[in-house]
């Protein structure tokens, strides 16, 4: 029984190492792209997409969200919706004024 638990944790550890390498690679890509000084809208979209992927990797594997209980996923889904409302509010304010 104990060896089965150990084996499962060892599998986890292999995943952690893979995720770590992916996070390092994505960090390198973000910094390299920033030196190209792309047009601001493009740079924002690209940088936020890469940050989103990195954040998803951390949440899914380091925080074990990928195998977490429904009650947590439900609470976080609500949080994400409210977070997106917060992000859209300032933009919609200026869109309303036609700026």
């Amino acid at each position, binding site marked *: 029984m104990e060896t089965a638990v150990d084996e499962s944790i060892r599998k*986890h*550890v292999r995943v952690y190492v893979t995720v770590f390498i992916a996070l390092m690679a994505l*960090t390198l890509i973000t910094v390299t792209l920033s030196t190209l000084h792309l047009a601001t809208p493009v740079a924002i979209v690209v940088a936020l997409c*890469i940050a989103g992927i990195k954040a998803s990797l951390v949440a899914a594997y*380091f*925080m074990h969200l990928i195998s977490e209980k429904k*009650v947590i996923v439900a609470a976080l889904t609500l949080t994400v919706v409210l977070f997106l409302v917060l992000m859209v509010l300032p*933009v919609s304010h200026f869109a309303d004024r036609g700026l």
Partner: protein
Amino acid sequence: MEIPYTVEPRPDTGLYNAKLGIWLFLASEVMLFGALFSSYVLLRVGATTWPHGYEHLNIPLATVNTVVLITSSVTMVMSWASLAMKNIRRYRLYMGATIALACVFLVIKGFEYAAKFEHGLYPSASTFMAIYFTLTGLHGLHIVGGVIVNSYLLGPGSRMWKTDPARFTNRVEVAGLYWHFVDLVWIFLFPVLYLL
């Protein structure tokens, strides 16, 4: 009286209580940082000009700090995995490394702040510097909080390993969830403030 559901899952949630508790706390943290990110967007969209982060901030130092913080997230999760494999010695090693990396992050941030102050770049210097210091300052406080909790779990708190190892492992998991969240916030702060 015993605190209920510190190890065994509560039948209705399927979780031990501390895990549900930390996730609800982290949800509130998302809204705290969300409010500040929202303020950043408002200030930036409303400004006639906005400086590029790389004009004022030190990207190499921030890149090193990104690597440091991501590495500390790995050592944190490895400290939990070590406990799950009943290896307290390896736990101490990884937890010690996590705390050390957090301190490295704070020292580097200290150098960055000092360099800004030397050039007269205080929060009052511009809207950009104001939001930069607010966001990184609040994040830095979260790092300090993590160092305090992790140091307790490495030091006096680790006595629980002898009396109640399953509960101690859960405590480390919960502290880890908080720590990964702090890493996650930095993953967004780094491009938003420094690279865009």
